[in-house]
């Protein structure tokens, strides 16, 4: 298309509207379902994109339009374009899905509204989600983290790692002061999408991950291939023959013979057969040794993911707790606690469906951002403050649309900073009160940035000027009124919940372990490992030398005995 905006937002070549119409008509003749528009330098001036959207409304009525300057108003044409295209790509389906869902869940006569959990852990209206599906891409993992926040807070822990292990993959995140760390990039398949989301890292390690031994190197590998739900692990007896992590757990006696309240029964013999193949290929001395090896390696893979969000960001995991959930998380949680040193390990109630708690316990959130590349020398406190407040107004509008009064909005500001010339920005939280018009605001940002840079990279560039890259305001509405439930109190002795005794293989030998029914546990109960705690959607393993105490909020808190 004939048009050009310069890097400072100036119009170099005006938009040729006739050219736009001709091209849109061609696209129409090709039967397109959605349109994305991404022009160079539109982050600096969105006028041409806006005008194209207006013309598209005339030429292509009913076709949804994604503008890069709305989806991601940030410098870097490739990332902006890809994110915009991803948005347009899923928009027709998501839009239809939202409409259907909204009409199905609508209760006649009720004022209830459908909200969708955004990737950053806040809620938006179903309508906004339909227009900006790229904002809700990480909704599921974010829900788990937000649910973890709810339960960790009740158990008295504000800083923790989350560990969400499912069938094919494991998601981890870091939460500090009950605030999940937020990241800007999400990888979907081969594409890197930029949209604010809880900084969740994913590794291809889950209950269905397949263990294999390449003939040439005879190394033991676990994943990233997964048996998925079908055929699933060999133990499911649904035709799977390859050894999975779940099979290893079955061989070692960590999983009961029935899962999901009897829906799935586990075939111990099939699991042993599958794992025996690994024993043969590696020359390990027994099926149990092979199974332990599989578990050790998958735990190590997940430990690697936890290190990505902690050690590699300059955080010591020993300063954090570890919240474990997902169907398979509680089974591996105690072992991950040992590897990371993050105590206590917290297993919330119903760990298999924690993300639903997240959805129910968070509030509406709006965000407004803008790229504003300025060296600090070119900025003043007043200019930046005015820009931030303008973003805040835009962020508030989302909440106002939902009828949330202004006095209930919580406003937070964040800026992305770097040293002039660097290509990587560090997000820094802004204390708007510090902006006194005399440079104290910019000073506080410098300090905040330097502290983060030092933590991440262990040095500062003292001669380099600080540079602002983008600014963001978020407006959060109040949490819904969800009352926390308390379980009845009991004594230390958990024997009232004991259901059976079983044999498990740990640290190289078979030992006897008690099995407890989680539903019958009472607050204050203490379970000493080795022990297994079963419930409908998950199984928790407590290792020898460790104990789990039952918190009144229903969470299990696992710690080493010597920390008692």
């Amino acid at each position: 298309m004939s048009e050009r905006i310069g890097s400072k937002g100036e119009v170099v070549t005006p938009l040729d509207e006739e050219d736009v119409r001709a091209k849109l008509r061609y696209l129409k003749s090709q039967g397109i379902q959605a349109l994305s528009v991404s022009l160079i330098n539109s982050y600096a001036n969105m006028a041409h994109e806006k005008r194209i959207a207006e013309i598209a409304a005339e030429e292509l009525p009913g076709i949804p339009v994604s503008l890069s300057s709305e989806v991601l108003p940030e410098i870097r044409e490739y990332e902006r374009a890809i994110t915009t295209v991803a948005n347009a790509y899923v928009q027709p389906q998501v839009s239809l899905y939202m409409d259907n869902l909204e009409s199905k869940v609508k209760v006649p006569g009720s004022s209830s509204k459908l909200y969708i959990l955004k990737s950053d852990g806040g809620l938006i209206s179903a309508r906004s989600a339909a227009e900006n599906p790229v904002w809700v891409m990480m909704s599921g993992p974010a829900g788990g983290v937000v649910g973890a926040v709810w339960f960790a807070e009740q158990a008295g822990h504000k800083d923790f790692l989350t560990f969400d292990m499912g069938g094919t993959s494991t998601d981890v995140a870091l939460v500090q002061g009950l605030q999940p760390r937020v990241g800007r990039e999400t990888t979907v398949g081969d594409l890197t999408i930029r949209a604010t989301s809880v900084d969740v890292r994913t590794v291809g390690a889950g209950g269905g991950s397949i263990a294999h031994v390449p003939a040439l190197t005879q190394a033991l590998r676990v994943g990233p291939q997964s048996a998925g739900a079908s055929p699933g692990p060999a133990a499911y007896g649904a035709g799977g023959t390859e050894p999975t992590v779940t099979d290893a757990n079955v061989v070692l006696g960590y999983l009961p013979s029935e899962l999901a309240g009897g829906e799935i029964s586990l075939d111990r013999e099939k699991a042993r057969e599958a794992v025996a193949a690994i024993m043969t290929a590696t020359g390990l001395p027994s099926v149990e040794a092979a199974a332990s090896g599989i578990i050790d390696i998958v735990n190590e893979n997940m430990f690697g993911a936890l290190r990505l969000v902690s050690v590699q960001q300059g955080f010591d995991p020993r300063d954090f707790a570890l919240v474990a959930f997902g169907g398979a998380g509680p089974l591996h949680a105690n072992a991950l606690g040992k590897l990371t040193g993050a105590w206590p390990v917290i297993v919330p109630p119903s760990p298999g469906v924690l993300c639903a708690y997240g959805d129910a316990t968070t509030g509406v959130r709006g965000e407004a951002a803008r790229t504003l590349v300025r060296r600090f020398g070119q900025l003043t406190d007043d200019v930046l403050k005015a820009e931030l407040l303008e973003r805040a107004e835009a962020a508030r509008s989302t909440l106002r649309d939902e009828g949330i009064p202004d006095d209930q909005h919580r406003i937070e500001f964040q800026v992305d900073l770097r040293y002039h010339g660097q290509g990587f920005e560090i997000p820094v939280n802004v204390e708007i009160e510090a902006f006194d018009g005399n440079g104290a605001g910019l000073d506080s940002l410098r300090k905040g940035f330097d502290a983060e840079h030092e933590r991440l990279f262990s040095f500062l560039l003292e001669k380099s000027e600080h540079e602002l890259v983008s600014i963001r305001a978020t407006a959060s509405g109040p949490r819904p009124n969800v009352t926390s439930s308390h379980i009845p109190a009991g004594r230390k002795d958990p024997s009232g919940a004991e259901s059976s005794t079983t044999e498990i293989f740990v640290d190289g030998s078979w030992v006897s372990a008690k099995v407890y029914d989680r539903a019958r546990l009472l607050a204050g109960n203490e379970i000493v490992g080795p022990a297994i705690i079963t419930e409908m959607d998950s199984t928790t393993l407590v290792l020898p030398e460790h104990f789990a105490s039952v918190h009144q909020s229903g969470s299990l808190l696992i710690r080493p005995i010597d920390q008692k």
Partner: protein
Amino acid sequence: MARLIETATTPLTPVDVDVVTLDIIENALRHARYEMDEVLFRTALSPGIREQHDEFPLIGDPEGKMVVGQFGLSIPDFLENFEGEIHEGDVLLTSDPYSCGAAISHANDWLIVMPIYFGGRIVGWSSMFGHMSDVGGKTPASMPTDAKTIFEEGVVIPPFKLYNKGVLAEDSLRIILNQVRTPDWNRADLNGLVAACRTASRRIQELCQRFGVDTYVSALNALLDRNYRAMKTLLEMVFKEGETLSFEDYICDDGVGYGPYKLRLSLTRQGDKVTLDFSGSSPQAKGPINYFINENLVRMFFGIYMITVADPQILWNDGFYPLVDVIIPDDSFWKPAYPAALNARNHGIGRVFDLFGGLLGQTNPDLLNAAGFSSSPHFMYSGNYTEGDRAGEWFQLYSIGFGGIPGRPIGDGPDGHSLWPSFVNIPCEYLESYYPMRIERWETIADTGGAGLHRGGNGVDVAYHFLEPGTIAIHDDRWLTYPWGVNGGEPGARGRKWIDRADGTREIIPSKVIDVPVYPGDVLHFVTWGGGGWGDPLQRDAELVGLEVRRGLVTQEGARKYGVICDDRGVVDQGATASLRAEMARNRPNPLPIFNMGPPLETILARCEEETGLPAPKPPIAHV
């Protein structure tokens, strides 16, 4: 030979390491290596490292053998050439290829080497080098295409202690940085390299702490042994005893008027071992294109091709080195005599991949790719702002261009990518906000990828519109010889460069130039080459060809190379296509040649001026 000072004197006890621990350590090493990249990318200032990732990390065992890394350097060669003691806390720096046994291959690469101590003994080495945007000398970016000695290529740092027992050699660093045009960038990049190596060092110390140093070092040996065993099996599987395979390719010219330079590589297996022999390659070049390579690096390149195919999750390492002998003749393109110029060795590095691909692919079609974007073409632009709030300020851009990736057994070559997997392009919006230029075009050029069942990737046309006076420099190749196609695929198109001056005149620019003046309103077209095609183009799905016409990747005319007749919107005429394909099949050799290098070299040279607008280079002469 370096003298390593260790306070712990009791020898380590070799222990058996079980397969699980071994895999855990292997995994942790892999993480550490990627963490090195992350630390550097985020802290570097020069766009070359920061945006384009022109850097290479390595973690070595106590002897310096690589246990994890990318490719490109060799610690044993470095240590062999270092005179003096090495203590805990020392960090070594060099940029002199001639005094580290070609551990690096031109003076722009600054190499950091750091011993990793645990309990008073050396348990490993971390090392990393990065390409500095400028290291001084006669032209901005320090890559003079007309250099005949290394003395013209800027500051050449002999191996020395940047940190002596933890103390920074501030004076030495000051002297070095005083030679370069971009001292702030170099200082930040150097900081990043050191920080990355220290990160690796911490990770290795944590592993020693967790598993014990005996287990850790024994595990490294087991990992090296794993590579040795895997390679031994592979060599026997892939290569026939006693048979010699050879392959030849060319670098078009040397920047000072000579070319093409023949690069030849042969392989023979005898018993357990293979010999890689570079004999028959052209003599040392007069210009700066020599690629000073050491034997270990050749082994490493060879290893990439062989091992990764067998177990993609393996950490490939130096363990297989004893199985590979390497012969590199003295005073050749690959081993020039001091003080030959070296700066433009990027074409040679790229062409090594074509050489190995063409050589090894002869034994196994699964490994055979076409020739691709096997170079890293450079573009530089520098000057002083003449107006605005930056008037008088110096600007300097160093960037690496992308082109067509070859057609491959697994599918089409991507359009407009880098050969180097971790490289990314500098965003146009970034270039426009930091440099006085507008990128008028960054587009893939239809039909430049070689036709094939799997199409070669298209080259790109990047049009730089200059807004301030300055000078530009270009390093590129494949303007004369063709990126070859394989298994019936056609060659890709050659690269071109020209400037459309503000006054309307057009100037053809050679592929290797420096100090070309440009003025506001001039537009440089930097057109790179396409990848070769893979497999028979007549077998390509006609509808896919039509779709690519619609997408602007192939033209209506270009579709005929696939025997496809379609309109300008890519609607295929099935009947006409079938008859054209039948006719084309009748009129071509059967079977199709494995390699299609385009016309014979004599023809290419005879038509050079007519086709490219540039005079043909003179035959290379022995220079030493």
